[in-house]
């Protein structure tokens, strides 16, 4: 199995397409960093325009943690496309090249072959998330320094102490990895049904867009299905930045407002991953290779 995973990783990282995602993340975060470094104060003024009369903030609002949060809010919506670029190509790309039939004439069971490919896809997804973390968190910490994290929610304001933030990002990136693995498993599943990667990529993104719209629409008839849509739970990483308060309305350092909600979301995502991978194996084991 390990040999198969090694081979798949070797193939993934020898393809130029793989690096599009890394380049895109680097470029996008670079632009955000450049903009905020150049004109970050205006951005903060705009962000705080409605509350400056009631709150006085001391310290450096535009710090590395703040920029990282901004970056994640913007990018985690678009990263699925970058994941789909590779995941949706895993089987369809091989079918398109004609290499799938050669691979499957080798003495490897189809299940092992498929699992190795999925593992390699997950490894790629995790590496992309690690790169996102390096660029969005560590580089921003270097450029903008660190301070408390000030978050404006719709009904309230969250202020996290500097020493109570880093671990939250570690968990948030971990959760994001789970969410992106769900996207990868969906793209991987669709890649079984086509002989070029365009169809599965478009199908993956269409499902995500469709489900995201359903997840965000506040119409009662859709509320019953929302808990079952993986897109509803993909933004669960934000929950790590909601903190408990005591009776005096003071933040409890090291706490999370609703850990059960995070666990529930993680469970839904894991179930989706298991579902997509199992379905992929069942389909692939019976599939006639005609490419």
């Amino acid at each position, binding site marked *: 199995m390990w*040999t198969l995973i090694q081979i798949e990783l070797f*193939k993934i990282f020898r393809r*130029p397409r793989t690096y599009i995602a890394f380049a895109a993340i680097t470029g996008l975060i670079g632009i955000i960093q450049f903009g905020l470094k150049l004109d970050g104060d205006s951005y903060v003024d705009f962000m705080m325009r409605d509350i400056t009369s009631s709150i006085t903030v001391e310290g450096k609002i535009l710090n590395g943690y703040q920029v990282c949060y901004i970056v994640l809010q913007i990018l985690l919506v678009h990263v699925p496309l970058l994941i789909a670029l590779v995941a949706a190509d895993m089987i369809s790309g091989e079918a398109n090249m*004609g290499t799938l*039939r*050669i691979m499957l*004439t080798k003495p490897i*069971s189809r299940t092992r072959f498929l699992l190795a490919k999925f593992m390699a896809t997950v490894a790629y997804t995790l590496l992309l998330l690690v790169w996102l973390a390096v660029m969005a968190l560590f580089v921003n910490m270097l450029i903008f320094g660190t301070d408390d994290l000030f978050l404006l929610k719709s009904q309230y304001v969250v202020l996290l102490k500097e020493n109570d933030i880093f671990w939250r990002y570690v968990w948030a990136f971990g959760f994001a990895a789970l969410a992106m693995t769900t996207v990868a498993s969906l793209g991987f599943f669709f890649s079984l049904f086509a002989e070029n990667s365009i169809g599965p990529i478009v199908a993956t993104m269409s499902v995500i867009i469709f489900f995201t719209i359903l997840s965000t629409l506040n119409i009662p008839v859709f509320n019953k299905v929302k808990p079952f849509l993986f897109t509803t739970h993909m933004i669960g990483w934000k929950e790590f930045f909601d903190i408990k308060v005591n009776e005096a309305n003071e933040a409890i350092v090291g706490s999370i407002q609703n850990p059960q909600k995070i666990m529930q979301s993680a469970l839904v995502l894991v179930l989706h991953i298991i579902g997509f991978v199992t379905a992929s194996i069942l389909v692939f084991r019976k599939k006639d*290779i*005609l490419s």
Partner: protein
Amino acid sequence: MLYYLMQPIVSVTGLTKQFANLTAVQDLSFSVQEGDVYGFLGQNGAGKSTTIRMLLSLIKPSQGQIRIFGKDLQTHRNEILAQVGAVIEKPDVYKYLSAYENLKLFARLSGVKVTETRLMDQLNQVGLLHRAKDTVKTFSQGMKQRLGIAIALVHDPKLIILDEPTNGLDPQGIADIRNLILHLSRDLKKTVIVSSHLLSEIEQVATRVLIIDKGKKIIEGNALELFDPSQTIVELQTFDNAAALTKLQHSQWQKNLQPQRDAAILVKLDRKEIAQLHRDLVAMDIALESLQPRHSLEDYFLQVTSGNQHVDTYTN
């Protein structure tokens, strides 16, 4: 060895593949003995590739059984495929990898540990040593085909399956493949199954031949005995074929006339009778443009695959 003398290397029984409303292969049975170069012949769409893909477990049969090396393919897939090398239609490999990287990758997938020296030697055998480190996207079709063959052979398989291996090759490439098949069979004692829609390719290498049409077996047998070598078909081109045909229909040659193709007149006869036919044509005042004996197996092939007739299994 005794084992293989008793049992064929490949034994196919009642193989059928149904795609929705299309029956691609119907009740096909054949066997391949050790050391055979088994020619699998049929026109495009006859069901050759579907059968070969079933032999390689790429396609699941709707019915029937495939036994290779005496074992059921369905239950011993990996064990069997470890001893099989295949080139299926186009030689598709990873274009962004070098020839060496492709070969190494597929060798690992075949479950064998091979040294760099062995890989380089394999590339040398197919004439690609000087391009070992070049990416495959810079290769010609012939070079890709040779790499495909190196990949099929890298794990030293006992059975080699080549599906339309000369597709898209120039005459030199076709000759190279032919020589390679003969080398594999004669020098390395491998068993080879080779499919083609071109009789000329098969007849030069095959020891046994299976002809299929519309998914059904037409005939299976020894290549040399599939046709009577004393019989042949001559193709007549005259300056007025219609008039010549009328004269022949009223002559002693009427019983020898074959259905016309491409406007030529076809006469089936004993090779010794060709001279007599020529004399009679002159006597009948038929102005002959050309008289050409056709290869009888080719003619047979065309006749059986276009005539939709089915012949019982040929047995030696």
